[in-house]
């Protein structure tokens, strides 16, 4: 009885205590939320919103649906095996006349031309030559006479596929795939199949730049972490210096240095190492050099912070236990820098994946990365669907990488030992 009493007392006060704790915590949570709210709203409007918009655009298909609504409705029941019936031709004729009056033919023509080269001509010539609504029952012949393409099944499957409201067309195109007339997913024709190569190139350049940054950054970070404070602060200023210079200026500086009459070539010629100027820019070499230079601080800083946390006592302990310097470095120092290597590499790699201005300025035609094409489709040809699809694929790849990295780091934390 006397033993049971305290237990009972605890149980009866437990619930109110929890509630009181929650109440006390709530005020703190509200305060914390109020502090992050401005940034949260800002990010929602400037980051999450546009990304959602981009993802939506990569699958949205509105042009044909808006310009040729009756045709799309009429094709809904078409099985696609043979030519559609007279009703669909009549609907198309009516849609074309309405669209010509509204001046929207070009919108649909542009979209259909993406899917079938030459569709623009079919649609505009039909619109030009169709004087009035055909008599009932003659629409098929009339349109067929104006452009024989209307007697082909592929023309009609193209319109049906582009009927929206959502489509996989752009995403497939971004992966060099397309649908054939039967709706099966097949490889895109060779003249359009360029994106896999570009993604691969983007990946390779990013990997190369990441590797270069690691190779150049590791010794510098080590020096930064081990030098006495005065000297390391000075060195740190040199590391951070690029951040205070415009990206454009830094990239253009490389053009000045690396061009055929540039500083590097002139020096090599003068020293007699070469007879003709080396081609150092407007190729892969120039891209890698310039990007490595720009991205190096993003590698050095995480490396530095992970190395700074490694006490010099570890290396001394390893030496006192009989490990020669190289063994001590490989078995004791390097493993402890892995979180820094991981963070720095991920940062540089992801930044490099989206690089645009540097390859555009110092790269040749064969060195342009995916961002260049996204910019091209957005600003030059206004093919927002394809631009968004390329962006979505890039985003997916990046997110996957970040997840893999998160898993790696987490598994290290689960087994503990990342702290002293």
């Amino acid at each position, binding site marked *: 009885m006397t033993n049971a009493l305290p237990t009972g007392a605890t149980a009866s006060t437990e619930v109110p205590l929890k509630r009181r704790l929650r109440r006390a915590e709530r005020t703190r949570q509200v305060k914390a939320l109020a502090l992050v709210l401005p940034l949260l709203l800002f990010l929602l409007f400037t980051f999450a919103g546009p990304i959602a918009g981009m993802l939506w655009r990569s699958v949205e298909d509105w042009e044909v649906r808006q310009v040729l609504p009756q045709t799309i409705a009429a094709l809904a029941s078409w099985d696609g095996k043979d030519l559609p019936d007279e009703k669909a031709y009549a609907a198309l004729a009516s849609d074309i006349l309405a669209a010509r009056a509204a001046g929207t033919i070009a919108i649909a023509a542009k979209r259909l031309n993406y899917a079938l080269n030459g569709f623009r001509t079919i649609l505009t010539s039909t619109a030009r030559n169709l004087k009035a609504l055909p008599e009932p029952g003659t629409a098929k012949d009339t349109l067929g006479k104006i452009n024989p393409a209307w007697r082909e099944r592929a023309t009609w499957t193209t319109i049906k596929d582009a009927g929206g409201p959502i489509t996989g067309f752009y995403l497939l195109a971004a992966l060099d795939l397309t649908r054939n007339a039967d709706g099966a997913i097949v490889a895109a024709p060779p003249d359009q199949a360029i994106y896999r190569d570009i993604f691969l190139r983007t990946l390779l350049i990013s990997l190369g730049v990441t590797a270069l940054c690691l190779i150049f950054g590791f010794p510098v970070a080590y020096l930064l972490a081990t030098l006495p404070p005065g000297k390391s602060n000075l060195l740190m200023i040199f590391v951070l210096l690029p951040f205070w210079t415009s990206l454009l200026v830094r990239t253009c500086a490389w053009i000045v240095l690396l061009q055929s009459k540039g500083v590097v070539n002139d020096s090599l010629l003068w020293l007699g190492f070469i007879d003709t100027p080396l081609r150092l820019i407007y190729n892969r070499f120039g891209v890698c050099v310039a990007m490595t230079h720009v991205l190096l601080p993003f590698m050095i800083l995480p490396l530095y912070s992970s190395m700074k946390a490694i*006490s010099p*006592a*570890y290396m*001394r*302990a*390893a*030496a*006192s*236990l*009989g*490990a*020669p*310097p190289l*063994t*001590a470095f490989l*078995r*004791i120092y390097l*493993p*402890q820098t892995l979180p820094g290597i991981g963070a720095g590499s991920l940062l540089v790699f992801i930044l490099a994946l989206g690089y645009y201005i540097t390859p555009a300025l110092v790269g040749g035609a064969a060195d342009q990365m995916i961002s260049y094409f996204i910019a091209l489709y957005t600003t030059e040809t206004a093919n927002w669907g394809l631009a968004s699809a390329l962006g979505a694929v890039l985003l997916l790849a990046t997110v996957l990488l970040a997840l893999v990295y998160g898993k790696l780091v987490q598994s290290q934390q689960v*087994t*503990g*030992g*990342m*702290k*002293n």
Partner: protein
Amino acid sequence: MEAGMVMPAPALVRFSGIQKTYDGEHLVVKNLDLDIRKGEFITLLGPSGSGKTTTLMMLAGFEMPTHGEIYLSDRPIKNVPPHRRDIGMVFQNYALFPHLTIAENIAFPLSVRKSSKAETQERVSAALRMIKMESLAHRRPGQLSGGQQQRVALARALVFNPQLVLMDEPLGALDKRLREQMQLEIKQLHETMGITIVYVTHDQSEALTMSDRIAVFNDGIVQQIDRPDALYEHPVNSFVAHFIGENNVLAGTVETVERDYCRVALAGGGTVAARAVNVSGAGASTSLSVRPERVAIVPNGSSGEGPNRLPARVQNTIYLGDHALAVLDVADNAEFMVKLQPGAHHSLRPGEGVFITFRPEDCLALDPV
């Protein structure tokens, strides 16, 4: 320095004329000559900046002597890198490798020596048994308490049977109770394994508890090397007298010297007889050193003329459980401590005038502070 020692064991380590400077202006270690015998537990004791850690680091190979030579088993090792010295070391903050498990940490010195797998396994489990941590073999250092980490660091430094083990204030980060327990464990390990240990600390009670011999460092110089009891009973100068144990200082001037004893006129008035340990002769100023437990308090007015009887005024009394302290104003020293039996402090009232007395052999005349 070591007159009277009987047949010292052969020296395992010999520091010969070692000097060390970091800035080229002043010496951190000034002309160190020190022999460390095989199998002994020697402590380098001193305040921070006294050169004791630098001495240890030179022995470990992490610092290069500016001048002189260090011999290990009669082999000069000044130019031998640390990993070839075969010296185990326990660091201040343990320096356990955070990315390796306890077993991997202990196996590290064996694996860099390319021991066979079976032998490594056997010795690691023996080491884990020794520190009673078999069940924690697969934990990481971050998951252990300070005392457990300390044991692992110890096991790691011992597992490869080094000819010498260095310890750099290894217990500094532990709380008092754990520290005392670890002191006994290390002492026991030393006795059972017969290893040579060089231990650095600034904690004199730690040094007294564990050491066979203590080298007291100050200002880059070894002030005295001796057994703990000899250091306490026979300090050669004021620094050692003050650094080891509690000590009362009275300033004075030597009046006469007669063989081993002298008469000293105190700066605060009165004369006492003292053992002449470190005085140059009559007329020299001196510091007298008297241990608190060697002083008796006699009530005012009681009879009896001791050789050293000085008037004192009670300032305060402090109760410390197993004993009590009386703080007295004696001559020029307003913080003269006298150790009392617990309970005896009740009879003393602050402001009360008393007399203190101590034997001449318990009062050492040393160099002036």
